[in-house]
């Protein structure tokens, strides 16, 4: 499925881009529908594409095996696979927990775009940074055991 | 064919502290009689060195949980001798009162909880209570009264806080001490009952010729004060300060024990029988009547019969305590003080289980230079083993278990206080601790 540039305008990460940049990215992007239970990537996989949730729900879990714990579920418009923007392996496992529509873009194309225009690069990275920081806060709250200590 | 029998108990029960005994009889001859103690040493004499002399009664109390006042009193007396302090008669009466509390507590504990089950055939007083609840409850009541008396005068039964060098840190109000009067009066009645009770106990036979050693305390039956030490058998009276020249302690490898004997090697006995022998006429008249009533002689040669002597002393302690409480007035001072000086002093008193002797050397700044403590159980230990040897042949006619119990019962007769003894008794710790490992 092809992706309309207008779809990218809905995603916070790409909202700062000039129209032509969004159109260029849209040409590289694809849209896919995935059923519940589909594994988008596993923790530790090599870097690859980045995804965005259009609808449905994606759950990220960390720590494979019996001790797996859910980190968070992602709401529409959130980025899935930000670590690829840094060229790092996947830090979590991403599973579709409610049938989802995803936009897929190769991370290398996004990075290339950023390098070409540092202002665009700054805007994209600032957005990505904020989403990552947000997740860090959540993780911290989970570590604090937000619901546990009371009687 | 040789007939060799071994009677042994690896963990002695109903005694204070941990010990075991072995009695071996071969072809009717006792070849080994050994009371050994595997209690770990605690080094009191060693760590007292360098402490302030005022701390000594608090520390020596910790030698024994049953007779701490005896330790406090003997050490305080020794230190007073070193400093040249002379407590007033009022202070001495207070000391006698608290010491009576300890006699009551310790004798009631021993007579009812530790020794009586032997005579009536039980493993413990708790078990005995199923059939003889009234007797056990009486024992507990008497013991409680002793403890209460100590509490009023010293705060708590074990390691009371008031005894100090020079006297007691604080004297009770008249009302506080009188509060125990009725309890003591009832205890006096019940202790008389106790004499009658234990006098009826079936008594195993054993006759021993003892050399008796006991404190002399003026005209009084000796409790809290030893002016001198008297020996029987024409051996005369020894000043407290030179007791360590009359008596020697020997490290006897065969018995694992540091044993005291007289200088000529004669074992001697201290404790209730010795006190009665030397001082029967000084007992309170009520106690003397009780003696007469049950036909107890002044010289008790059967060690098992010490339970009756203890009961008589219980009567005496109650009568004495009652009199002291009734006559009590708050003294001007509850302790005497004086300047520090370098010196040496010895002191003795009569712990419930016998003569307790202390000697200290102190420096001019009031710290302890050296300490020596000779507790009753160490003095009696050679005697205990000698008595075991005497008992040996009579056991051969008995079933083995009963014979072993009879031997253990004999050791209990001396009310041995093993923790007290430990700090000086030899500790040849055997590789296997058969008692509990």
């Amino acid at each position, binding site marked *: 499925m092809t992706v309309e540039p207008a779809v990218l305008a809905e995603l916070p990460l790409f909202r700062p881009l000039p129209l032509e940049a969004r159109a260029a990215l849209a040409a590289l992007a694809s849209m896919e529908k995935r059923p519940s239970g589909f594994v988008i990537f596993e923790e530790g996989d090599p870097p690859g594409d980045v995804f965005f949730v259009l609808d449905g729900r994606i759950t990220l879990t960390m720590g494979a095996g019996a001790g797996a714990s859910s980190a968070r579920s992602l709401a529409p418009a959130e980025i899935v696979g930000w670590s690829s923007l840094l060229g790092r392996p996947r830090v979590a496992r991403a599973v579709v927990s409610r049938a989802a529509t995803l936009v897929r873009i190769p991370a290398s194309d996004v990075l290339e775009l950023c390098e070409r225009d540092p202002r665009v690069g700054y805007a994209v990275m600032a957005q990505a940074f904020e989403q990552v920081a947000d997740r860090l806060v959540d993780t911290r709250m989970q570590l604090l055991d937000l619901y546990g200590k009371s009687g | 064919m040789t007939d060799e029998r071994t009677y042994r108990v690896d*963990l002695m*029960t*109903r*005694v*204070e*502290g941990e010990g075991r005994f072995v009695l071996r009889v071969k072809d009717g001859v006792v070849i080994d009689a050994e009371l050994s103690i595997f209690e770990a*040493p*605690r*080094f*009191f*004499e*060693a*760590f007292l060195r360098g*402490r*302030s002399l005022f*701390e000594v009664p*608090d*520390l020596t109390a*910790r030698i*024994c*949980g*049953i007779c*701490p006042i005896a330790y406090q009193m003997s050490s305080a007396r020794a230190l007073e001798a070193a400093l040249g302090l002379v407590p007033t008669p009022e202070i001495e009466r207070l000391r006698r009162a608290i010491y009576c509390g300890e006699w009551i507590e310790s004798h009631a*504990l021993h007579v009812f*909880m530790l020794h009586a089950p032997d005579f009536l055939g039980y*493993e*413990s*007083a*708790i*078990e005995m*209570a199923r059939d003889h609840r009234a007797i*056990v*409850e009486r024992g*507990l*009541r008497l013991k*409680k009264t002793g403890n209460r008396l100590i509490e009023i005068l010293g*705060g*708590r039964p*074990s*390691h009371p*806080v*008031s005894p100090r060098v020079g006297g007691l*840190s*604080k004297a009770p109000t008249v009302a506080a001490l009188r509060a125990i009067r009725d309890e003591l009066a009832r205890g006096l009645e019940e202790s008389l009952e106790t004499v009658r009770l234990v006098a009826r106990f079936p008594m195993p036979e054993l006759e021993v010729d003892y050399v008796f050693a006991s404190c002399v305390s003026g005209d009084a039956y000796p409790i809290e004060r030893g002016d001198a030490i008297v020996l029987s058998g024409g051996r005369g009276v020894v000043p407290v300060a030179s007791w360590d020249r009359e008596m020697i*302690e*020997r*490290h006897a*490898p065969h018995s694992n024990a*540091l044993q005291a004997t007289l200088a000529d090697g004669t074992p001697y006995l201290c404790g209730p029988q010795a006190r009665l022998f030397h001082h029967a006429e000084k007992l309170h008249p009520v106690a003397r009547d009780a003696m007469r009533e049950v036909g107890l002689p002044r010289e008790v040669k059967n060690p098992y019969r010490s339970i009756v002597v203890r009961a008589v002393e219980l009567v005496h302690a109650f009568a004495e305590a009652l009199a002291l409480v009734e006559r009590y007035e708050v003294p001007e001072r509850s302790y005497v003080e004086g300047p520090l000086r370098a010196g040496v002093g010895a002191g003795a008193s009569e712990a419930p289980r016998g003569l307790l002797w202390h000697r200290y050397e102190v420096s001019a700044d009031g710290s302890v230079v050296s300490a020596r403590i000779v507790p009753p159980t160490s003095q009696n230990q050679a005697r205990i083993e000698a008595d075991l040897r005497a008992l040996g042949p009579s056991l051969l006619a008995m079933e083995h278990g009963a014979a072993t119990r009879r031997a*253990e019962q004999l050791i209990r007769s001396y009310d041995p206080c093993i*923790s007290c003894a430990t*700090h*000086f008794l*030899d*500790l040849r*710790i055997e590789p296997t*601790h058969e*008692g*509990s*490992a």
Partner: protein
Amino acid sequence: MGSEAHAPPARPRLGVFKLASCDGCQLTLIGCEDELLALSEKVDIAHFPEASSRTDVHGRFDVALVEGSVSAEWQREELLSIRERSKLLVTIGACATSGGVQALRNGKDVSEFVRAVYASPAYISTLDRSTPVSAHVSVDYELRGCPIDKHQLLEVLTALLVGRRPAIRDESVCMECKRRGNVCVLVAHGEPCLGPVVHAGCGALCPRFARGCYGCFGPKESPATAALAARLKELGVPAADLARRFRSISGGAPAFADEAAKQELEHD
């Protein structure tokens, strides 16, 4: 509850054990004159050599009361065995809880001690340190005191039997002293008193008898030993004396041992 017949629950088994000690703490159990017989109906006093010839050297226990410190190797071995066989292990008293008065040997040359006391030192086998039970095995509850207080002992036994936390306060002796209406010996008489840093439980006995607390119950929670030492110095207590006061009945407790060491350093 249904109507089906239930066998009465087995009485919990109690064991009383002794290491290096004076017997005063286990004597406290016999000293519960009013409660002893009732207690023996509620619990099976299966091993208590001081009180009964019925012993169970190898048995299992629901509650083990351990008196005394570890000061010989065989005691360490016995302790490991007691721990293995007991559901709950309760230390009773200062020896078991902090090493006791015999911990005064710690840090000293014990062979010299042995020579000082014993005529034939060759026979003596002992560890060079007297250590608390908790240095060797895990402890479920530590009951303080030299000796322990009988009401606290009953409270611990009751709480363990009923299944609640023992109501034993870790406050200072001052709290007890004030509740009793004693006049503070430190403030009113300048008497050195360890009460402000010592664990309550004795009923503030020493101040009641006009003397300063000497620390039978060991340090309270967060004991301000340095602050107290500073204050006592203002009152004229020399460092060497302070060191001895902290290194006494509960001298093996780390808070007191550390303060004593500080004062000894200063003195030297």
